């Protein structure tokens, strides 16, 4: 039963991802990418990673994509003004993407047959996750502060007009 759910979700994921990159209008792209992120959150729930599923919705669909939309509107890019690339380049792009898919699949083919050793489905529970994050991974957690500080200063300096 869950397997069918997986297939349905996967179809939504891949379909929305494809629509994202093929939509003419950037606003549609944003909406499709949000749908993709929601379906990935669904996958997370399937994998029993509830916390990440919530964060995925809040951070990606909520914060990041809203930022995208804001910039789209702010820069007035919501029309499909993009001149399309020549057909040859489009074909080349598709072929390259397809080749990459094939080569990656081929590279990891023998890895695919390896069965997981120890399955413990509760890794994604908030309790376990919090435990790991604030003991073992406390330092990187703190270190992200530097990253954010730098980002904040950078974003402000870059966008501020003289």
């Amino acid at each position, binding site marked *: 039963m869950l397997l069918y759910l997986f297939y349905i979700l996967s179809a939504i994921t891949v379909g929305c991802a494809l629509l994202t990159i093929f939509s003419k209008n950037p606003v549609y792209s944003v909406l499709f990418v949000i749908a993709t992120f929601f379906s990935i959150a669904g996958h997370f729930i399937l994998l029993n990673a509830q916390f990440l599923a919530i964060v995925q919705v809040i951070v990606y669909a909520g914060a990041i994509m809203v930022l995208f939309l804001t910039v789209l509107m702010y820069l007035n890019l919501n029309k499909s003004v993009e001149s399309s690339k020549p057909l040859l380049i489009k074909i080349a792009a598709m072929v390259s993407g397809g080749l990459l898919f094939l080569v990656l699949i081929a590279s990891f083919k023998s890895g695919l047959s390896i069965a997981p050793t120890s399955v413990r489905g509760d890794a994604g529970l908030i309790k376990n996750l919090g435990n790991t994050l604030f003991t073992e991974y406390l330092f990187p957690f703190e270190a992200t502060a530097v990253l954010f500080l730098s980002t904040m200063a950078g974003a402000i*300096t870059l966008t501020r007009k003289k």
Partner: protein
Amino acid sequence: MNILILVSVLGVISLFAGLSESLRQHTRTIIVAGLIAITGLTMFTWNAKQFFPEMLNFDKYAAVFTTVILVISTLIFVLSKDQFNHDEIHKGDYYGIMLFTVAGAIMMVSFSNLTMLFLGIETLSVSLYTLAGSRKDLLKSSEAAFKYFLLGAFATGFLLFGIAFIYGATGTFSVSGISDYVHNTPQLPAIFYGGVILIMIGLLFKVSAAPFHFWAPDVYEGSPNIITSFMATAVKVTAFAAFYRLFSGAFVDVNEKWDNALIIAIALTLLIGNFTALAQTGLKRLLAYSGIANAGYMLLAVLALKNDASNALLYYSISYAAASLGAFAVLISVSDDEKTFEISSLKGMSKSNPLQAVLFTIIMLSMAGIPPMAGFFGKYMVLSAAIKEGYLAISLLAILTSLVGIYYYFKVIAAVYSAPDTEVQTENKANIVVFICAGISLVIGAYPDLILNLF
């Protein structure tokens, strides 16, 4: 770890100092003094108590490279006088972001867990994206930032994909854990090798090795001079130190599985870097391509890591950073960010500023790898390390292309000693940084043991 905190705090101080107009004038002095103090501290406290050894292992390797990065950064801050005058209000911010870049660099050279490697790379890169675009009034600066960001984020995707596969195979992000896994597993799964290759691709991008070098010339040329000098020296050294640390720590035992891929990249890097540099007319772009070419030689040390080539890498890094920083210091002294500075504009320097001309010659000779300058021993050591490991063909290519390299460095020297187009006034002054860099190139060339006995 203490060093990391101190550098970050210095960055915060700089951010706040930038707010007040009176303090802003002294920010640079404060930072230089602070960095010198921190450098001293690094040298004396490298074996102090470790707090999160499973995340950051501040071992000798990390301490030595941290010192190198701090020294380079200090010199760049010395050099950065008047470099951010175009945007007076944000001066403190730029200084602060540069210090956060250094903090990211320190994470990258001392990580013992892929999480820290990733965060270090991102802290460094995200800060650099900002810095590359810090000349907001110049389109080329924006273009540089944009290209750097787009391609950098793209490469990060590959790096992360690789990390995910490594995690899938080993179940851990710790470098020593991966190493143990490699030791204890007789038949490694294919996803492991695929992961190594993808990580390598991500790191090859960061060190600007071909065919992932495309961003480097454009970003180097478009960024403000001071930022370019920072990227070409401190950042490049950091990226190599991290590359070497990861591969010698985790993947050394499977090097026969990834060395072919690396050889392809080195060959392309050497050819593209050296030959394209030959066709350049702008000094900054020439230095950018020379940076790519030098990445090829430094990758030889990574290739030969089975036989501990960290000495060779360290020596090469220092000699390259000194020469490159010196060249950029000269560039900064003769040009501004707005126009492209042609090599032919160097004409007459031997008349107008003989002292700087001589120092610049020393620096260029070191770059070209002419003994007894440091550059020669750098090349000598990475090559002999690679030859010792049996990588003969690629070493031969490296020797051949280094001869091409000599040609374009001599083109610069020839320009320096050519007659000026117009009468010039003679003055004998050179930035202290040019002095120091030329001095380092000479001294560690005459006495390489100074560096080599560090490990």
